[in-house]
């Protein structure tokens, strides 16, 4: 069922760099002897929106952490714009991360700074721009997510959806090549869901940003992604374009798309046979 996604749009950066923003080949990861990921192979073309779907705790966020260099794979290759991430030393890793943006699950805004200062953070840390220029950039990014008027607020004064959008503005402050989204739709009201989805899609189309979205919201993902990977128990068990996914006959994909309680992902947590437990007093 696997097929190539649409070719990357021609932007200046795309020409200078390899065709794929991210490539994983046969990646395995273990945490304390417990295998979390096995044989993960995926490719994210430049400028596209790729989704990683799966149930909770199946290792989706671990993939993002491997790409960002927070974790080291046990085996396999992790490439970002052609560079092997585990082989980078600390300074090189930090340089690479400037090309990355990450949206954490609940925003992870710095609570002791205002919205403005949160977005200005990377600009202040990594560039020598004057305060006026930074101000213009910050207001532009906030405008892109529709929150320019909230610049003076503190994170504690924001709703969940607003915090998520500010975090998005912060993630794209340096115009990164790749933005990773960790559960961007979790816990949002329908309006915010639509907004966030649109922002992800539009930042890709307008700015040529490659987006990697980890989520379990099948409905929203099908609306915005070019390609989808399904992960279960640490393995990729299905992949395809949204149309292929909707038409798929694969049992796992069907259970996910239809939201059925039982199927390849079982409803019951492993336990002794029901009859014997109920009657065990005898």
């Amino acid at each position, binding site marked *: 069922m696997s097929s190539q996604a649409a070719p990357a749009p021609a932007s200046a950066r795309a020409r200078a760099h390899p065709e794929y923003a991210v490539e994983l080949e046969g990646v395995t990861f273990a945490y304390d002897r417990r295998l979390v990921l096995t044989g993960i192979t995926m490719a994210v073309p430049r400028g596209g929106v790729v989704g990683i779907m799966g149930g909770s705790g199946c290792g989706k966020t671990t993939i993002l952490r491997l790409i*960002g260099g*927070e974790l080291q794979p046990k085996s396999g290759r992790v490439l970002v714009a052609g560079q092997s991430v585990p082989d980078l030393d600390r300074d090189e890793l*930090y*340089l690479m*991360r*400037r090309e*990355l943006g*990450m949206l*954490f*699950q*609940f925003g*992870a*805004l*710095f*609570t002791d700074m205002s919205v403005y200062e949160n977005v200005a*953070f*990377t600009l202040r*840390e*990594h560039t020598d721009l004057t305060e006026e220029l930074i101000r213009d950039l910050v207001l532009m990014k906030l405008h892109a997510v529709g929150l320019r008027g909230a610049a003076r607020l503190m994170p504690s004064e924001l709703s969940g959806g607003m915090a998520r959008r500010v975090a998005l503005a912060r993630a794209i402050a340096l115009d990164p090549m790749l933005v990773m989204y960790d559960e961007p739709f979790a816990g949002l009201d329908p309006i915010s869901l639509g907004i966030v989805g649109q922002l992800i899609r539009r930042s890709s189309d307008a700015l040529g940003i490659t987006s990697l979205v980890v989520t379990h919201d099948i409905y929203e993902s099908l609306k915005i992604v070019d390609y989808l990977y399904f992960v279960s128990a640490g393995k990729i068990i299905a992949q395809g374009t949204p149309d292929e996914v909707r038409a798929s006959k694969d049992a796992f994909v069907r259970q996910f798309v239809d939201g059925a309680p039982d199927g390849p992902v079982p409803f019951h947590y492993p336990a002794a046979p029901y009859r014997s437990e109920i009657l065990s007093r005898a």
Partner: protein
Amino acid sequence: MLNAVGSGFLSVLRRMGSRTVTIIAWLGYVTRFAAAVVQQSPAALSRLSLTLREIYFSGVLSLVIILVSGLFVGMVLALQGYDVLQRYGAAESLGVLVALSLVRELGPVVSGLLFASRAGSAITAEIGLMKATEQLSAMEMMAVDPLARVVAPRFWGGIISMPLLAALFSTLGIFGAYLVGVKLIGIDAGAFWSNMQAGVDFRYDIVNGIIKSIVFGVAVSMLAVFEGYDAKPTAEGVSTATTRTVVESSLAILGLDFVLTVFMFRGVG
């Protein structure tokens, strides 16, 4: 039967052994962390505004509790000291007694314990909470080292604040003793101060006291930032970490105090 005893003994040994290995591994981890923090310190100190902010949060906000406690400790010392000294007609030595007790021991130790409970636990909670809400990870992913930006300023803020707080504690204590001894009880003010001046040596007592408070500052600040950084990213994890900071800091202060006192005040009298 011998087999059972033997294997039971072996399993106890094995458990003790693995616990020891765990403790040694933990010590190694703490040392590596400490080295990393020290390595990032120049970057943190060059961003003076960050460190100043932390001096405010650890030092200035601890002023009230330190000053009030110092005052009361001094007053109580004076009361108790007078009670004993006047039996031997040595009431005029009250100043020396209080000053030496405070400058050598109570100043650094008690202010260290108070600092650990107030500022140390606050630092741990703050860093732990930032870890739990993924702010530290976010910073890492934005290519900013959280050790340099979050941890080191708090570490140095604590080290700078501690000796200042200890000196303020001792000063307020002496003032409290003056209030009780001279104003309340009626000891001669001149004798109070002159005996004190004669009995307290700058290099021997005061400088040693300052050295103690700096050592305590390093210990408490390092433990506080470490426990915060190492906390489990849950509400329970943060609360456990704060408790550990206070307990470990208190034990460290008392233990280091003993070691330092032995070295500094050897052969007193």
